[in-house]
């Protein structure tokens, strides 16, 4: 330790009195091995002239090779986002059916389809019981979910019951009520 300290101090004194000597010493000690090392690892660099259009093409091609960002599967399934997603999915299913029926009814005379209420009721009535109940349940499920979850969303829009725990609790309430009311509509109504 003492020897180290003494060397350090003498070096400092030398540097203060004669800066050029000190810099030459530094060069002799450290710069030479670095120079040898870099001469061993030379890499020839070639450049290429490129128009802006060419470089744009390369950039566009490169962007198509970028990694795909993670999809929904990386998230833990939780009530708030699952219910919110289902709200949109059930709404799309219901509205999609509504649109398909409305458009089909308009063009039905052209194709000879029988989409009047009496024909549809007769066709549905002729189905076997199990299929009727299953169809009713499949139709009732998105309807009841979207209706009751829509109430939940409207409550949030009023700025109420938006705490995380409340959101999870009301989510489960809506889930239970959806299944119960769908079963009621399919079996008893």
């Amino acid at each position, binding site marked *: 330790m003492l020897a180290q300290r003494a*060397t350090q101090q003498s070096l400092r004194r030398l540097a203060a009195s004669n800066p050029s000597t000190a810099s030459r010493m530094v060069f002799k000690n450290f710069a030479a091995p670095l120079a040898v090392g870099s001469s061993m690892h030379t890499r020839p660099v070639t450049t290429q002239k490129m128009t802006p259009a060419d470089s744009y093409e390369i950039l566009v091609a490169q962007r198509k090779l970028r990694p795909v960002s993670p999809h929904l599967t990386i998230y833990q399934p939780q009530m708030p986002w699952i219910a919110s997603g289902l709200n949109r999915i059930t709404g799309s299913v219901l509205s999609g059916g509504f*649109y398909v029926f409305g458009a089909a009814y308009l063009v039905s005379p052209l194709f000879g389809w029988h989409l009047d*209420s009496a024909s549809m009721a007769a066709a549905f009535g002729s189905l076997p019981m199990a299929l009727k109940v299953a169809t009713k349940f499949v139709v009732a499920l998105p309807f009841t979910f979207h209706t009751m979850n829509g*109430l939940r969303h409207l409550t949030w829009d009023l700025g109420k019951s938006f705490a995380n725990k409340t959101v999870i609790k009301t989510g489960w309430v809506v889930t239970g009520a959806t299944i119960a009311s769908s079963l009621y509509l399919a079996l008893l109504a």
Partner: protein
Amino acid sequence: MASIVRPAMLRQTCLATASKRTFSTKLSSFPAINKPAASVLSRPVVRSAFVRDALPGAIRVAAFHASGRQPILPPLPQVINGTANDAAPVPPANPSHGSYHWTFERLISAGLIPLTIAPFAAGSLNPTMDAILCATILIHSHIGFESIVIDYIPTKRLPKTRVLFWWGLRLATVVVGVGLYEFETNDVGVTEAIKRIWHA
């Protein structure tokens, strides 16, 4: 000299370098750095970091992007406008871009509550109320589909597809509106029809 006197310092330096390289995705061009397990580094933490370093570059890059590749769609056409240094565009001011449409959407949604409960309570609806219910559902559906188009077909990425779907949705809404008008005027009404089919 200091490193000979104080070996702890060397160990710290090595640890720092090793941890820095663990998180980097590039292979060093310096061959000595990519060699596994130097004898000086006997601590297990350090050794594991160096073992990871010895993996090929591509595997380390893949591991860095931790999730698996799950392309649900092929990459969309790429268009690069301007540079990264351009300021974000400010949309032109328009009084209808306020919260009016939001309030309107909520009023439509809230209006559907009594219209949905009424047929369950009364058994069916009279033609006027049935027409109002149909129109409200149509507007509600149109707004919902609009939001879906806005969310999943951004103008920035798919400008032509966006225009196609935007006007396609408007056309579909008009067609469905006319179809429902025909149904309401020629048939028994939507609530009554659903009731008859449901009890068939």
